[in-house]
């Protein structure tokens, strides 16, 4: 092996992790507050819903689908939960309502894409606009649904998810850990996850091996919408108000997280652990941008650069492996 080849090999194999560490180190050098414990905890807290949403995207992309509607679903689910609370329903009804909404959109997506054959990009892009339109109509043109001004008794249970601690750790983080564990088993260890892997690589073989391809493919869209709805509830519970279209920027973050996540896997697969790392990275990145007082402009540029870098590295990796 020549020196150049060796170097390429090394970059391909470990580039992602090294790269992430380097970037974080650079951030630390520029901004000393970055690695302080309270800051890190804050980032973990705020990354939790991104992690949950990213899982939805991971599941869908792991079978070569895509879901552009998740941010909008999260947004709308949050608004629905908030409106239900405002209309006097209890917290359980609010959460159920939001999740049911996620389920509904997921099923529509699944039918369109898996059973009718609409390309996922088009189908979910269309649904994104349908959901947005419904949401804006519902809120009379994006009026924020404010919960924190309500009497504490009415929202105490609902805010428990987003604002309370159990021991030293926040409920939000605990909930996220539960979701991580569940999704890890679903994606990486379960029968369903194995079917997903097969469909990702070879639909025809999967079909002939006796896998219900349409159902598995569709189910990932349902899961993705459900998780998005959950993330929406988490966000509203944390912030105490639901601002329509407030979650839309998370779509970008999801993509970056998911693509960075593929680099953690040896075969460039979309995977749960990778997505957690990716989402945390995005969380730290946003945090750094906030600490530095840079605006959304920089965040978008960073996101774009990292997405292209991640995929380019992935392409390099598969070429070196081949």
């Amino acid at each position, binding site marked *: 092996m020549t020196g150049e080849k060796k170097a390429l090999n090394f970059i391909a194999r470990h580039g992602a992790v090294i790269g992430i560490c380097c970037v974080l180190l650079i951030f630390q050098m520029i901004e000393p507050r970055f690695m302080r414990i309270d800051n890190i905890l804050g980032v973990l807290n705020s990354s939790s819903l991104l992690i949950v949403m990213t899982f939805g995207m991971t599941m869908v*992309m792991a*079978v*070569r*689908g*895509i879901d552009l509607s998740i941010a909008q679903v999260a947004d709308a689910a949050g608004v629905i939960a908030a409106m239900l609370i405002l209309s006097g329903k209890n917290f359980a009804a609010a959460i159920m309502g939001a999740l049911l909404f996620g389920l509904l959109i997921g099923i529509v997506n699944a039918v*369109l*894409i*898996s*059973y*009718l*054959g*609409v*390309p*996922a*990009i*088009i*189908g979910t*892009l*269309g*649904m*994104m*606009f*349908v*959901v*947005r*339109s*419904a949401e*804006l*109509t519902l809120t009379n*043109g994006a009026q924020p649904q404010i919960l924190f001004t309500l009497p504490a008794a009415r929202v105490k249970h609902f805010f428990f998810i987003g604002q309370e601690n159990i021991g030293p750790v926040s409920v939000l983080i605990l909930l996220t850990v539960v979701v991580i564990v569940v999704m890890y088993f679903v994606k990486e260890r379960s029968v369903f996850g194995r079917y997903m892997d097969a469909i990702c690589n070879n*639909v025809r073989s999967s079909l002939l091996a006796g896998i219900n*391809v*349409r159902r598995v*493919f569709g189910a990932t869209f349902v899961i993705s919408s459900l998780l998005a709805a959950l993330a929406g509830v988490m966000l509203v519970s944390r912030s105490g108000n639901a601002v329509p279209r407030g979650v*839309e920027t998370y779509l*970008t973050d999801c*993509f970056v997280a998911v*693509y960075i996540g593929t680099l953690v896997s040896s075969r460039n697969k979309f995977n749960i652990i990778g997505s957690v790392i990716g989402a945390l990275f995005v969380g730290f990145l946003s945090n750094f941008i906030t600490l530095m007082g840079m*605006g*959304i*402009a*920089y*965040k*978008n*540029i*960073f*996101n*774009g*650069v990292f*997405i*292209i870098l991640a*995929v*380019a590295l992935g*392409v390099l990796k598969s070429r070196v492996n081949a």
Partner: protein
Amino acid sequence: MLDKKRLRPAKVGTLLLGKGTGVGMVIILCLLGLRAPLFFDITNIMTILKQGSVLTMIALGLTAVLIGGGFDMGAGALVQLTCNLTAGLLIAGAGTAAALTSGITVGIGVGAVNAFLVIVMKIPTFVATLGTMFIMQGITSWYNGGKALTINSIPGFAVLGQGRIAIIPVIFLIVIVVCILMNYFFKHTKTGLRMYASGENPAAARLRGLNTRRYLLLSYVISGLILGFTGVLQCSYNYGASAITSGMDFLIQALSAAYLGSTFSKTGELSVIGTVISGMFIAALSNGLIINGISNQQISGVLGIILILSILLTVIKKREIGQVTIF
């Protein structure tokens, strides 16, 4: 062998494809017009043509990429970028010619970058254009600092977006000219024909010794040129650039127009003329719905449904699962 008397979904699909789109459009517009006669007023029609022009131009840019076998998530973002750039330059005192040149140059540049990422770096089209989309959004909001850039009416420049010849908007005439040029290019020149072939059936194109990558590059450059120019038009039409930077609304409308346009042909062939008709139809629909008292917010939902339906018409007979092959 012909199957006689058997009405399969495929046949219904084909039937709808052949005639359905055109007839459906006419019926919908007539219904809208019946409820609000104002809709068919000549000044309103001219307004629609003006309103739909920017959207149609974006759709044309996107059509060029789609014909070449690519995809572009960043079409809307590019228009926003060049629109802001133009506004900024004009505010800084540059002339119309300088604004036009810089808009088009940036457009071509972005197209070339996309092509580089896709062809040389071998990054799948979706991700590559998604990445550049984010970067463009970032640059746009960095450039305008989150504020709308409003320009005063500059006589020479305002003609592009606001002027009329007789009662016909200049911007619509521009669309027609671009449409004719593109149609000529794709239907009557060697290169255009080959671009179609290499986008539709790359295997066949390669078998005939065509370099499909060259045609993909060309399609990105052409699309960048059109989109860059559209940004300049948008600036003139809109008296500057708005602060909304995502361009996603533009993207969905343009995609709808392109795919809806493809349903005019039985085989789902993307066509320049189909795109223009569909783009104008979408503008007319938005206009008609507003006249009929439907709110702005609901219109984007209607557009989402149109997007899904238009593609559904072409895919229903194959009924594969909607996997994405471009990332």
